[in-house]
């Protein structure tokens, strides 16, 4: 610095000289600097815009792909629902309509019996003989006092009374019989009513299912047409699924850890407590392996039951094979549950033994320790149940995986959008920063520019004066020429 300021005896003068030289250099380099800065700004601007449009394009593609995935998932879901409803309808039809001939036969039989009874009941009981008139006629006979007539009339009266009693008795019997027939028809009517209400119920059930299928089919069509509504619904459903299944998986992880703790200690009895795989105890790895095996078996079991579709090959197997695989897997799971239960028992014993030793080493009296079998049973039950509970992890796991694709896609699209925005922002910033630098450059060399302005102004003033002189000369010459012309014309006229 001192060397720079020593080009003249006075440092200030040296500084001013350097400043003037620098300004001069900057003034002369102004145009190339402006051009290069403008080019630099444009390069940044164009490059960033190009990159932003490329990212935007990638985002669009990703969004399209996301929508495809979403729609495919939606279609699969709708298909699954429709398929399930068809299965249910098929079951209902098989259950209800398989018995339809039987129902029909029952109805026919009941109706036949009803008809027979109706016909039987249609036989009107014999009415009482028309003796009233005869009796009236006999009653109207005036008493003559003839003994023979009296006897005869008494005989007739007695006979009539007896026959009347018999007729009334017969009539009552006939009516009772008719009532009996009618009362026997009542169960048949009830049977018919019950059968018909059963048929009605089955039909209404089928009707409801068909309406449900209609609704599912509508959704399916909407999804197939890739409508906005379907996309929104599916997207929101995916997000919900993602969070819910995430929470359930977190709970399952805690369960798996408890399960692991139940088996890790007793595993050291089998594989030894002093060997390591990497940084982990072999017994811990073995315990983790058992828990993992249970979870994997759970995945297979759920696939074999067609509850999940993690492995399409299992779901697409023939029913017989699938059932066989299910039972094989279930037996394995059951064996693992039994093993784990016994390991839990062993763990309890080892832990109790360790605790007793610890107390003995600490000089405590171990005979006073209260022992109970309840924790042992509890651990054994937990050890047995947890593998089966972990089986159900497959359901949230499948939901999590399928919804995470959508969620990750959405996040990636959002990230790409942000990147595109940032790139555009950088491009604009680069462009305007180059402009700012140009203006700042001009600001630094303001004295030189001011001087240039003054010089140019002076030059232009001189030029203006010269121009006005030329103009005056031209006008004078013109006037002179016109005067001469006028004079010539006058001379010619004269």
């Amino acid at each position, binding site marked *: 610095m001192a060397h720079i300021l020593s080009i003249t005896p006075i440092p200030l003068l040296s500084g001013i000289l350097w400043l003037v030289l620098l300004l001069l250099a900057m003034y002369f380099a102004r145009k190339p600097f402006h051009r290069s800065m403008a080019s630099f700004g444009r390069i940044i601007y164009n490059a960033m815009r190009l990159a932003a449009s490329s990212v935007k394009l990638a985002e669009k593609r990703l969004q399209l792909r996301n929508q495809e995935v979403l729609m495919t998932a939606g279609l699969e879901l709708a298909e699954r629902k429709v398929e399930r409803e068809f299965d249910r309808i098929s079951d209902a039809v098989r259950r209800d309509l398989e018995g339809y001939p039987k129902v029909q036969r029952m109805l026919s039989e009941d109706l036949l019996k009803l008809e027979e009874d109706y016909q039987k009941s249609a036989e009107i009981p014999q009415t009482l003989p028309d003796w009233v008139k005869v009796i009236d006629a006999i009653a109207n006979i005036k008493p003559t006092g003839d003994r023979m007539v009296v006897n005869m009339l008494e005989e007739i009266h007695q006979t009539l009374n007896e026959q009347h009693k018999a007729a009334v008795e017969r009539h009552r019997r006939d009516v009772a019989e008719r009532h009996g027939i009618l009362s026997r028809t009542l169960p048949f009517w009830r049977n018919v009513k019950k059968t018909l209400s059963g048929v009605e119920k089955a039909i209404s059930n089928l009707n409801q299912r068909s309406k449900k299928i209609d609704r599912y089919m509508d959704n399916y069509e909407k999804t197939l047409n890739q409508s906005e509504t379907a996309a929104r619904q599916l997207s929101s459903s995916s997000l919900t699924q993602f969070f819910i299944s995430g929470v359930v998986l977190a709970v399952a992880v805690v369960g798996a850890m408890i399960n692991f703790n139940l088996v890790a200690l007793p595993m050291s009895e089998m594989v030894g*407590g002093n*060997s390591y795989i*990497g940084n982990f105890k072999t017994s811990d*790895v073995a315990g983790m392996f058992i828990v993992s095996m249970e979870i994997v078996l759970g995945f297979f079991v759920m696939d074999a039951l067609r509850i999940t579709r993690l*492995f399409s090959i299992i779901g697409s197997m023939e029913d017989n094979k699938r059932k066989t695989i299910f039972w094989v897997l279930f037996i394995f799971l059951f064996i693992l549950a039994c093993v784990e239960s016994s390991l839990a028992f062993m763990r309890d014993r080892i832990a109790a033994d360790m605790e007793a*030793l610890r107390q003995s080493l*600490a000089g405590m009296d171990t005979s006073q320790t209260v022992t109970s079998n309840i924790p042992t049973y509890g651990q054994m039950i937990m050890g047995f149940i947890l593998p089966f509970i972990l089986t159900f992890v497959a359901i949230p796991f499948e939901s999590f995986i399928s919804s995470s694709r959508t969620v990750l896609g959405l996040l990636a699209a959002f990230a790409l959008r942000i990147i595109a925005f940032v790139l555009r922002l950088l491009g604009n910033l680069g462009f305007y920063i180059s402009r700012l630098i140009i203006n700042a450059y001009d600001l630094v060399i303001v004295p030189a520019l001011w001087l240039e302005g003054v010089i140019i102004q002076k030059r232009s003033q001189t030029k203006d004066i010269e121009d006005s002189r030329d103009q005056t000369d031209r006008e004078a010459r013109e006037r002179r020429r016109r005067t001469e012309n006028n004079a010539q014309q006058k001379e010619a006229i004269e």
Partner: protein
Amino acid sequence: MRPTGLLLLLIGWMLMTSCSQGVDRSRGVYMLLDTSGTYTAELKKAQTIINYLLGTLQPGDTLAVGRIDTGSFSEKDIVAKVRFDPRPSVANNQKRSFQQTIEQFVTTVRGSNYTDISGGLLQAVEYLNEAGAGQKYILIFSDLQEELAKGHVRDVPFQLSGFNVIALNVTKLRDDIRDPRKYLDRVEKWRGKTEKGGANWRVINDLERLESIFAH
């Protein structure tokens, strides 16, 4: 990602981590008990330390207790030794048996005339090297006042590379109270001897902080 993928990832990770296998994590502890003179009265404290060790050591670890007497460089001075079985239940039984042996020793021990700490240290080194433990600890339960019998040569350089030598309960003698430099010199002398041999030397006098034995 499908579960098979996760499983493969897990197996790969396990294989990768297993590449780092080969580090022997087993611990070998040799405890020297000073049975000379008045220090015999301190052996109850030693028993507490041994009980702590029994509670802390894991299957696969090695524990031995040797006495410091007139001539400690001898297998006969090993009071009890055990390599814990890999199975925890068996190891627990071994610990119980070890505890009983020590109990018996503490109640029947008689004080010796001389204190051959160097001989005990040499015996400990030999034993732990033979045991092949990954981490080696020699615990010296003594006041570090060495008194050799006539004719015993202990001017042998120690080979203590990889050993942790920990002096426990280094009590102050009557002379130390009058002149603390003697105590400090004594401790410093053993520090120098062991560190010269490549050992990591520590002193733990507070028996409430026994967990710092295995803390590096």
